[in-house]
């Protein structure tokens, strides 16, 4: 046997106190939430951060007027090779556009939550603070509204994300659609009292009181329809829309620059392309800026470029016209909604195309070439800013126009009181402007047929909204809230595939034919479901 002869005692003295300072490094490259939000300027910067996601390509920079909403009874995706994707309603819960929309909304919500939680920190003018808070609350409500109309009930959070590991905060279940709308109404209603008027703001970029009222009308109309079907909400919608009318802040645009165009309707969209503003008609716009060439900002979008009048010369395109893919064409049904005197038709639907070789002549479409026609609301030739980027435009996207408010008055009034004079007046103002006649005087050509019953008036409004607001990202959600989306889409799909006069675009029916009951909502994206343990397969939207 051997014995260990030596013993060693190992002593480690760790003087924790002396180390404390040495190990206390502080971030030098960024600011911490605890110290930020301490001046008025910082609140204003934070507010711009809340607006920022609206302009992403995953939202109104592209997808919310293109990939996600373009396939309706108004238009179809103009590429035969596009046989999968949201553009043709052939996709599943792993779809990237769906995941991006979801993530963008929640990025906006988190930024709003941070700002709202810290808005009391700086010493500043109380009215300015209230206006900032009002905008942040409205935007949080609006991002939730986008989630509600696209996904139904979703995880609802109104405080900044408290933890990355506590299961209570990282596995948040879906709220009911009812609770979600309750939050949206509460945010927007509170915001309404805090916001400036559009005249004070002087631009359609900031949320104004009338913008908030108009969107509240839209939210209530959505609640009145599918899936909640709370018909009592029509009265609420009517009341909010009428507040916009009564404010005296908003009117329809009736003027136009005759050297550029020939109708007041087209002038609205030309303004958006030229970074000019008409705050009387255009109440809220997502603003875009620049060409990504002249400076380092990346605030330009794709309106007019993806959805626009196709122009794709093989050599560099001349700045006069501006490159466009022309991804969306009209349906025949939509074209036929207009009569010949309606000035909106040949603006919303381009009646010609450009030759892609010099001298880039216009070629008019004929009566038999309807499906060939591109969406023409935003035509890049009108952009003022040069040089024009091949893929990005400075064109603003309209989120709320006064004509929409008037049509909401007409629709809600009809649901509450029937097709009264109020309903007819609101509707006919929109139509008279569209025909280029005086808004004040009755017009036999422009005015809607008199003495329609309630049901006929409703149907007429459904068509009129399309005539006035087509391609502005609203149609899909209108059809869904009216409960006619699936039937209408199948109808339009079969119509395109079977139309004997349509030989070149039969494939365009795919998007409509692929719609089934599940398509009234998007699927909860795989990115959420793979991490959030409180949303399991049984919580997925029906059919996905």
């Amino acid at each position, binding site marked *: 046997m*051997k014995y*260990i002869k030596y013993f*060693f005692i*190992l002593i*480690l003295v*760790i003087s924790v106190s002396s*180390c404390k300072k040495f*190990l*206390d*490094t502080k*971030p*030098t*490259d*960024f600011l*911490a*939430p605890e110290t*930020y939000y301490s001046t008025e300027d910082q609140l*204003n*910067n*934070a507010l*711009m*951060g*809340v607006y*920022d996601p609206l*302009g992403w390509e995953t939202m109104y920079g592209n997808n919310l007027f293109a990939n996600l909403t373009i396939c309706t009874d108004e238009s179809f995706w103009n590429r035969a090779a596009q*046989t*999968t994707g949201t553009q043709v309603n*052939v996709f*599943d*819960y*792993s779809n*990237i556009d769906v*995941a991006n929309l979801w993530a963008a909304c*929640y990025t906006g*919500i*988190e*930024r709003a939550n941070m700002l709202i939680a810290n808005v009391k920190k700086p010493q500043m003018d109380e009215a300015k603070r209230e206006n900032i808070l009002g905008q942040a609350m409205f935007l949080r409500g609006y991002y939730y509204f986008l989630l509600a109309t696209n996904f139904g009930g979703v995880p609802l959070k109104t405080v900044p994300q408290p933890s*990355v*590991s506590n*299961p209570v905060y990282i*596995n*948040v279940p879906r709220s009911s659609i009812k609770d979600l709308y309750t939050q949206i109404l509460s945010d927007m209603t509170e915001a309404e009292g805090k916001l400036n008027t559009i005249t004070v703001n002087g631009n359609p*970029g900031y949320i104004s009181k009338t913008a908030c009222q108009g969107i509240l009308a839209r939210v209530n109309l959505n609640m009145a329809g599918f899936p909640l079907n709370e018909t009592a909400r029509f009265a609420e919608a009517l009341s909010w829309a009428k507040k916009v009318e009564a404010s005296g802040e908003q009117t329809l645009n009736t003027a136009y620059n005759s050297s550029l165009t020939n109708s007041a309707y087209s002038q609205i969209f030309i303004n958006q392309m030229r*970074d000019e503003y008409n705050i009387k008609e255009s109440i809220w716009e997502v*603003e875009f*800026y*620049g060409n990504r*060439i*002249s*400076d*380092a900002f990346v*605030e330009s979008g794709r309106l007019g470029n993806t959805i626009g009048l196709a122009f794709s010369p093989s050599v560099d395109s001349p700045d006069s016209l501006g490159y466009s893919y022309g991804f969306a064409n009209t349906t025949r049904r939509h074209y036929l909604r207009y009569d010949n005197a309606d000035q909106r038709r040949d603006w919303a639907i381009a009646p010609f195309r450009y030759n892609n070789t010099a001298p880039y002549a216009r070629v008019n479409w004929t009566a038999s070439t309807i499906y060939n026609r591109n969406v023409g609301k935003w035509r890049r030739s009108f952009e003022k800013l040069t040089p024009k980027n091949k893929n990005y435009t400075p064109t603003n996207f309209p989120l709320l126009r006064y004509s929409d408010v008037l049509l909401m008055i007409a629709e809600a009034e009809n649901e509450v009181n029937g097709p009264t004079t109020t309903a007819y007046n609101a509707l006919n103002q929109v139509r008279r402007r569209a025909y280029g006649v005086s808004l004040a005087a009755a017009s036999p050509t422009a005015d809607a047929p008199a003495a329609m019953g309630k049901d006929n008036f409703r149907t007429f409004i459904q068509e009129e909204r399309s005539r006035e607001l087509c391609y502005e990202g609203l149609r899909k959600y209108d059809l869904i809230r009216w409960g006619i989306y699936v039937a209408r889409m199948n109808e339009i799909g079969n119509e395109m595939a079977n139309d004997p006069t349509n030989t070149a675009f039969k494939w365009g029916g795919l998007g409509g034919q*692929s719609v089934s009951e599940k398509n009234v909502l998007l699927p909860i*994206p*795989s990115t*959420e479901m*793979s*991490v959030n343990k409180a949303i399991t*397969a049984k919580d997925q939207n029906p059919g*996905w």
Partner: protein
Amino acid sequence: MQASNYNVYGISATQLPNESLGLSGLDEGTVQAPTAYTSDWTMRSYVGRFNYNFKSLYYFTASFRADGSSRFFPGHRWGYFPALSGAWRFYNEGFFRNLGFLSDGKLRLGWGQNGNNRVGDFDAYSTITLPISMSYPINNVPIRGAGPTAIGNPELKWETTEETNIGLDLGFLNNDITLTTEVYRKNTKDLLLRADLAPSTGYASAFKNIGSVQNEGLEFTLNTKNINKKNFQWSTSFNIAFNRNKVLGLNESQNFMLTNIRWDNNWQNVPAYIAKVGQPIGQMYGFVSDGVYQLSDFVDNGNGTYTLKADVPNNGNSRANIKPGDIKYKDLNGDKIINSADYTVIGNGSPKHQGGLNNNFNYKNFDLNIFFQWSYGNDILNVNRLMFEGNGLNKSFLNQFASYNDRWSMTNQESINFRTNGFFGGGYSSRYVEDASYLRLKTVSLGYNVSKTGLLKAGIKAARIFASGQNLITWTKYTGMDPEVNTYMSALTPGFDWSAYPRARTLTLGINLTF
């Protein structure tokens, strides 16, 4: 004590009118957002160590270290890592010495912990930043936006690995034969990883201590000197390793974690790998392939169109769009709908065993080395085939592998490949999982050392002529370019092949001269 300070400042400009001016011309262009980045970290460590050796018979080492890192919040900064090891060189006991055939013998035991703080310097902190991309224009004037761009994790702490190993070193016949046997088990807990967060949190990811994994293995190395004559030597070295890993636990009581691979925009949200508690870390995840739809799956409408029978599952696509010859998946839950509920484990990227065989020959002035390497039992997810054997990404004008010449059509209904445009995704499938076991003749090199006598006159001290080849022959069933690939290398995602650069077959001829 250690500290590091890191500063980067830069500007860039585009649209330079006079490129020839170089950096001086930058001010003439469109100035882009400048770069300014600073960071620092500090670390303090204490180490104590004790060595003991008794008559070259017993060895014992104990050590203890304490590491403090600025990367963690107070309360989580210090990690304490002890280690113990002992060895008994039993050959030096008289009994073994007298056995005769034994020439060395040692038994080793070890246990120890060590730590890992490999995260960014300030990943534990939440950040507010004002990147130029977060601007928003009002009245056509862009205004800088500020917002939370990363969420911190104050609970972040050291990752700890605890390893236990037993080793036996034996030498026979004057160490002409040596055998080393090693058994180890390595448990890593509080793994530091950037973990996906649910997008509803408002963030894509955060650094977390996400769970614990176990690696264990048995490894043998046998070295033999087969022939040792004056003019001819031959020695062989053989090793084989059996390694296994499994997930011991995931945080937040999750029982699995999915990992996506961002090789393509449309596939970046599709889970490719699953780490499930009690199972290997990186298992491939997706649908089980069921060939293609045959005519018998359809009702013939007589007009050239076919309707899928009600009792036949779809493939994720809407039923009306499915045509004969389309890709088909197994409906695991029997609901006739193929979706994420039909995902299952479809492959394992880790080998059952791998090893090498090395032979060295010397004959007079010639030397020859032949090295074989193998891996057995691992799978590869070959997404190149998804792209080039049926155009799963639906790209225009994309050439395809020759193997896709054979594809399903009305006149070729036996083909296992789906028809043109017959792909529908929504998940990886076992169609693209391949056995990647291989045996490879990795290296052969032959050399000749020119004898000195003649050379010295020419002023050359030594000369060697050699020829060698790498990756000469590979025996494998894998259809891709190289069974050794791993495009998105990580423990969570082994064996993914997406347009990997294959290992080159290299032939070298050379002369070394020493003057």
